[in-house]
């Protein structure tokens, strides 16, 4: 028989008081949380109703509700091409980042080798350096290589920018894997590649997808590096938005912002939906 430690009387009493306080002020707590969320979220969400205003109008609340701004957006070749360019860059950057980050995360998360801390530091270093500094460095470096203004240049820059975040996400997944599964597979005769493909990757799938969504969003949103690297022919959506705010202040920007916000929300919901899968124990 195991003995259950008994609560002392005073501990119990204190617990009851805290419970009572928590119940009495529950309303206040909820109200505070609501105010904070409203303060941070409202400016973002307000663009959504604005985006449904009429052409040439940018006011809240809109005087009449139309889809004119969206029509203007999708009929402007400059906006559409920047959306396509952003999509292309983000997809390529995500793909490359996954190809680099997954093996890196597995190697760093699973094995010990000399110089591991150095490699980890190098992989993570883009997170430490301010983005403006990275951008300037990339600009100077890529101008030597004639990569400034090219899509490839921008993709490579974004790969460097998002890879550390993917490594962190996937490494968290690797740390949850039971190493006994890989040992079991290799004792059963599986070669290293088979262990990776049939044992490790299927279990890492949720964290890889979460990392990919994250990488895509980061690349799609990224403006500083893109500002340095892109040319008028390779302008991405955030760069186009930034310039349009500076030079023209067209209400189309509200429609673009609303779309971007919804994209972010959808992606975040997707990754939240996927992450419980990684939290599930492997047995």
């Amino acid at each position, binding site marked *: 028989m195991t003995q259950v430690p008994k609560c002392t009387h005073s501990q119990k009493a204190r617990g009851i008081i805290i419970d009572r306080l928590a119940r009495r002020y529950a309303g206040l707590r909820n109200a505070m949380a609501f105010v904070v969320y409203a303060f941070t979220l409202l400016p973002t969400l307000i663009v959504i109703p604005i985006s449904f205003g009429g052409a040439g109008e940018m006011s809240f609340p809109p005087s009449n509700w139309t889809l004119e701004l969206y029509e203007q957006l999708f009929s402007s070749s400059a906006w559409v091409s920047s959306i396509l360019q952003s999509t292309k860059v983000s997809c390529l950057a995500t793909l490359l980042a996954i190809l680099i980050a997954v093996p890196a995360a597995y190697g760093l998360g699973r094995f010990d080798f000399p110089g591991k801390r150095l490699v980890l530091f190098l992989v993570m270093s883009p997170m430490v350096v301010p983005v403006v500094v990275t951008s300037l460095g990339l600009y100077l470096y890529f101008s030597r290589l004639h990569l400034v203004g090219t899509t490839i240049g921008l993709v490579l820059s974004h790969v460097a920018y998002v890879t550390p975040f993917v490594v962190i996400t996937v490494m968290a997944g690797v740390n949850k894997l*039971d190493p*006994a*599964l890989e*040992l*079991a*597979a*290799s*004792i*059963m*005769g*599986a*070669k290293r590649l*088979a262990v990776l493909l*049939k*044992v490790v990757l*299927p*279990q890492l*799938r949720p964290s890889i997808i979460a990392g990919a969504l994250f990488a895509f969003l980061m690349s799609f949103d990224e403006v500083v590096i893109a500002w340095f690297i892109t040319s008028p022919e390779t302008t991405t959506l955030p760069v186009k938005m930034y310039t349009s705010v500076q030079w023209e202040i067209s209400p189309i920007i509200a429609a673009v912002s609303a779309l971007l916000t919804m994209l972010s929300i959808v992606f975040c919901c997707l990754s939240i939906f996927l992450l419980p899968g990684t939290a*599930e124990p*492997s*047995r």
Partner: protein
Amino acid sequence: MSYVTVSMGSDEVLVPDSKQDSAADTMPAINMKANMIALEGVGKQYGGVQVLHPIDLAVREGEFVTLLGPSGSGKTTILSIIAGAIAPTQGRIILNGRDVSAVPPRERGLGMVFQNYALLPHLSVFDNVAFPLQVRGLAKGEIASRVANALERVGLVGYEKRKPRELSGGQQQRVSIARCIVYSPSVILMDEPLGALDKKLREQLQAEIKRLHRDLGTTVVYVTHDQEEALDLSDRVCLMNGGRIMQVGTPNDLYFEPVSEFVADFLGESNLLEGAVTAVNTVTTRDGMVLGVRSTEGCCVGSPVKVLIRPEKIGMTDAGAPAIATQRHNVTSGKIAQASFAGGTMRVDVLCEKGARLRLKTVSSRASELVGAPVVVSWATSDAMVLKN
């Protein structure tokens, strides 16, 4: 015995191959079956700490050998070294006549059952059991029939489509055993396979493992800290402590002929009386009891020893009853100091008149089992074992 040919000038002389014989010498020649596993001077150090002192251990083909010991005794280290999960600091591992010290786990042709099952969570029961056959590139039809056969052996027909997390612990461990026997590895390693299960399931699976071993005749190396499991399942038990082998032998050997106090104490209950050899087959305890013992071979008169008597070998009668003592018996009178009733049997502590306290196990009875009742206890000379210090 194997020989290497050494040429000396024109003559060829047969010289015993000392390397190979060193392992063969350390194992008792009980039967003539070949060694499936031979560990030769295998040891392991972690950062200057010797977790496993160099050991020699041979496991014959078809044998069920259990590595038994408290946690930290090095038993799991030995299993991991055989599996190839960790490399030994010194020594050689011979598997089926081949030195596999430098061979990776996947080429050793072993099977392993883990305490936490180690099933692939994303695969169904069928695919888990099929995994070792798929990596071997077997044909689909062959895989299906062998998986069906393995699942039938462990009583899991009808569970093929389930995921591991939809199964109970006992069922998961059965899947893991099926996954092992499906590709008929020459050796199956089991690392505390019943450790995560509750008592009833443990007994049930223990019986199944025993039956499977009898049916398949596979060599099994089993790790546990549970002595009853070890005694029930094993052909031989290797009892370990502190990174050293304390004794290797059949369960009977270990229980009835322990070589040391540790072995006697680890397996079952024991009464240990300190004393010194005073004559051939006679030991006088510290408090002056003169005991006849089975054998004092190898002890000098005066050398300090301990006498081991198993509680169930001690008989007890009421003080008034006619003594059943014969010449073979050690007899002493005393009083019951404590008695605990455990259903069919009871455990009684008797304080002997000379001061020794003896624990004995006896069939329960109501008669005069009162604390303080005078009794006579006796045991056969052949049940008193001498342990050298």
